[in-house]
């Protein structure tokens, strides 16, 4: 008897929970899935590109300071990485301007500083302070 009661209770609970989205909203104003639009997907792609470039920069800086990457290799690697990061940031800016109806691209979290602006690489390059090179992939 207890098994039957518990079984019925289980079935009733399950039915209510499965039907809950329709019980809460019998008529939905907008029943579409909350998916990013094409524009939003493109924005996400650009952000990924930016994050990837900044993470690579950050790790290169660290490896250079630690001595895993020497000055010569560092100089040959930092330029292209900075160009990639700058290109990603520019693309995001351009895209943001084109899609002005979309919300603005959020910057990195407050504790991570501001994104670096590309600058010519001096010879030899002095290791910058880590705090000036924020990265999404610490």
């Amino acid at each position, binding site marked *: 008897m207890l*098994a039957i009661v518990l079984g019925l209770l289980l079935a009733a*609970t399950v039915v209510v929970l499965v039907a809950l989205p329709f019980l809460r909203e019998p008529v939905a104003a907008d*029943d*579409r899935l*909350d998916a990013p639009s094409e524009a939003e997907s493109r924005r996400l792609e650009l952000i990924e590109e930016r994050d990837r470039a900044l993470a690579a920069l950050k790790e290169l800086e660290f490896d250079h300071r630690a001595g895993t990457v020497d000055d010569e290799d560092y100089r040959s690697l930092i330029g292209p990485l900075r160009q990639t990061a700058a290109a990603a940031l520019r693309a995001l800016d351009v895209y943001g301007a084109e899609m002005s109806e979309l*919300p603005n691209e959020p910057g990195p*979290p407050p504790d991570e500083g501001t994104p670096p602006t590309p600058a010519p690489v001096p010879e030899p390059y002095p290791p910058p302070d880590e705090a000036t090179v924020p990265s999404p992939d610490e």
Partner: protein
Amino acid sequence: MADLGRAALVCTLGLSLYALVVGIVAARDNRRRLANSARNALFCSFGSTVVASAVLATALVRHDFSFVYVAEHTNRSLPTAYSLSAFWGGQEGSLLLWLLVLTGYATLSIAVNRRLLRDLTAWVVPVFGGIATFFSFVLVAVSSPFNTQTAPFDGAGLTHSLRDPYMVAHPPMLYLGYVGLSVPFAFAVGAMLSGKTDERWIVATRRWTLAAWMFLGFGQLLGAHWAYTEVGWGGYYAWDPVENAALMPWLAATAFLHSVMIQERKGMLKVWNMVLVALAYELSVFGTFLTRSGVVDSIHSFAKSSIGGWFLAFVVISSLFSLTLILKRLPFLKARTKLESPLSREATFLYNNLLLVALCLTILWGVVFPILTQVVKGEQQTIGRPYYDFFLRVFGLPLLLLMGIGPLIAWRKASARTLLRTLAWPIAAAVVCGVVLIVLGAGSSLPGLLAYTFCSFVLATIVVELVRGMRVTGSLFMLVGRNRRRYGGYIVHAAIVMLAIGIAGSSAYQTTTDQPLKLGQSMTIDGYTLTNRGVHTSNSPQASKIWAVLDVTGRYHGTIKPVLANYKIPPEPGAKNVSIKTDWLRAQDLYVIPDELHPKTGLIYVQVLVKPLVNFVWLAGIVFVLGSLVAMWPDAREQRRLVTRLAPARA
């Protein structure tokens, strides 16, 4: 209460099927409420599976022998902990545990990611639903743990070799690993189905994959320890098909965990990563097929049953589905960049991947070869230990070397000059270690010598990395906290080195002897003298036992008592209880296997093994878990970043 268990399982089947079918419709037609309903059904399937599991657990603890499963796997004298462990001691119960873990993982992983990845989870729900439908169908229609009978007075009991704390923990760990691999699989398939193959699915499943990989690896070590102390053949890994079944997905997952870093960093290897995720998952289900079908001979197999065919069909269908999906979604999986140099970190990761997958497929060939010969020739030809040992050396030693080179080489490209300069200390350490080992006489085994030399190289690279990093950050704590994933990985590398030291020591440098000893007679092995002090017997309602008393003198002083037992409930004649003494000073085990013990004459036949450094294998397990935990520890900054990144998408 069996009716409640059956009803709960039927409920799970219905809910999983609903999540599958309705989930597909909702995701395809872009219908939010329907998608939420399918998601709720999947969540509820976890609830109903919990109910079914609670019914079985209660029956096991209460020794309710009206359940056929309980009567077959427990008896009244079994302690409660072992009664509960019978949950996964038999086929039906272990399948229920699989379903419980699967629906639990599905619920948690979707609940955690449902807001950030709403578009993706709409497709992940039916994937989980499909997998859960299969397992609940098998439990409802083919192999139910809730079959009942007229209750006998007592049950058959649990096999004595399974009454071991390690065996209590080993299967759940393996299941947490096997089933955990379905999380990255479901999200990867969901990403491909939705066409959203950006990196969000990787970020969402990174820790789930790491956790599954950790459980699978640690579970195997627990099983290895059980085999070492309980099974009594003198080793801990026999290349048994069922053991290999757990190793293969672990190797594939290891490859994935490395190659996914290249995708995150460079946007490369997207197709390869999808293949690895699918391979790891399919191999985990294939392992279940091996364990349950009876197609291979293994001490770990369940009795031959009818569910093998169902599993094979599921593996074939889901593999074809994954492959077709990857091929159809190739345009979404194009690489953004190319490999710039064969001397770069991404290149070493790629080499590492190729070696890991080659080792995995070599083992797979060794496992399926007997099945194929049975089908083609009508007689089973097995592949023995030399085959596996050979390929372990061929692929394992270069892997060990790469493990040292990888962390010290720059991303994108590195010059040979820089690499040599960076590796100078590790190379010097390896050379010194090699020379010292040769002087100490370790040159008797070339693979062993190479393994130790490479191990010292890897350890030196880890130390160099830590020292250099600490110069920058000022402390080890800051260094590890700054990049837990990287430094957790180094700890795991240290664990793999310890594992290699243990394996090489206990196999390449093992000493063994096998001889009869009359009463009072002695034998000497590797500086240990064992003297036969007599054979004794005991008899109880549970078992009759014969044991020898051997005094150990020389390098170690103590007594060793190997036992031959005839267990009565359940009947298990001739069980060998090995005796192991650890000589901590020399870091080696003295391992005695009783072959024959004669109480009347006092004559004994024993095998004695001296296994150097074997305890490094078990120590490696602890370090492995520690490193994995460090690598997967939640990072609040990363979470904030993800939330910030996706905020407009959710608005």
